[in-house]
């Protein structure tokens, strides 16, 4: 099998990675059957991508939306995007953490028996 060592999980290469407790995501993935883990993880991440962007767009001035999207397109992995946001939106990190936390609670409810 042709394999490549992945030193850092690719799913963690998002600018909001420091706001996520990744072990909680792992825990949620474990709530599904082993053969569904990959799908589950990807769906959770895609959901978080949308929730994070939704929160940012709610609080960031509309004139800067396009610029932010361009930045995301160029370097979605760059955690400095959070600093850029912090300069423009008061308490964006706690706001994002709240949204992420609420989403994880809802997802956990869906996946629990």
């Amino acid at each position, binding site marked *: *099998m042709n*394999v*490549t*060592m*992945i*030193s*850092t*999980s*690719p*799913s963690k*290469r*998002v600018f909001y990675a420091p706001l996520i407790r990744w*072990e*909680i995501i*792992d*825990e949620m993935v*474990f*709530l*599904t*059957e*082993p*053969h*569904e*883990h*990959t*799908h*589950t*993880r*990807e*769906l*959770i*991440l*895609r*959901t978080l*991508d*949308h*929730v994070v*962007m*939704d929160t940012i*767009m*709610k609080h960031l001035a*509309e004139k800067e*939306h*396009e610029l932010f*999207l361009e930045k*995301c*397109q*160029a*370097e*979605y*992995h760059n955690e400095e995007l959070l600093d850029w946001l912090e300069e423009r939106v008061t308490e964006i990190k706690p706001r994002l953490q709240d949204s992420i936390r609420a*989403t994880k609670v*809802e*997802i956990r409810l*869906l*996946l629990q028996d």
Partner: protein
Amino acid sequence: MINNPASTSTSFSPKLSALQEYYHQTKGNFHKRHKKASDWLSVNALDLHQFRQTSQQVLAAASLAGGVALNQPIDKLAQPHITQLQEKFKDAVPDQEIVEVTLEEWKSVISKMQGYVKQAPGHLPEDEEQYLEQQLTDMLGFEVAAELDGIRLNHSYGIMGGEQHLRRFPTDSLDQHDAYQESGIAPNRGAFGWFTDNGVLTDQAVEREKYYFAVQTLYLPTWNKDHARLKPWFKFRKMIMINPAEEIAVVGVVGDAGPALWVNKQYGGSPEVIREGKVWSRESRGRVILLFVDDPEDKVPLGPIDLKSIAPYIAEAEALPMPEASREEQT
């Protein structure tokens, strides 16, 4: 790898279908609430999750072009530890590094560890534990500890039994493991799940199964009330097994839970750990020390370390002239 997990599929379980529905709702809400952003994505023929994928491609390209070590080849991982350790001591030239452990201390530590493992399984007294942690950290060049993040096993030293190979992914079989097939393969997956990373058998996953430990997480006093936090913490947690009788250590990861109490052993080791660590030699009889490796950047490779071959390098480094700065410090 998956192509499009968000596409409709009738083969999903109810849980996954519910998650998929939830994702579509979240996505729909985003596009309804943020029309301009939605239009921008549409014009650029993008979906939000593609930012993540594009970013990964950019990083991969940067890695290839600039030598950024995002994807390390397995050869690098498989480099024997001893090379690193030899370099550490060999390079202890006067103006660069100071030898942190003398040969005498080294021999003394080995001798003490040989004594510890002959006792009933348990923990060392606090002062001896701290001394051992410090000495091993200095000798090996990476942090080792009996307790990490406030978590410790029920035993820092005890008896290690031999385990079978573990299935790394659902269709894995014994003939796909490259060594020690006579050990067999466990019928169920390990307690911490498959070794694959997002469904891909990476070189890291292969190494982890080769050098895995089974530890008695189920018997931790806080396991029942705190397993939601402890389980992910222990999953693939890096540890070092030291076999003092043979002066061999093996760095591995926690890959399974066990053994059961009635087995009268405190740890389990993969076929590679047991063989390459000489855990059941005439002198060792399974008696080992097992400590955590504090390696947040994942720099310490998995595999065996020949502790005997460190000594000559300590001696060689000791014989080097003392660095100017150190001489001044000592006067």
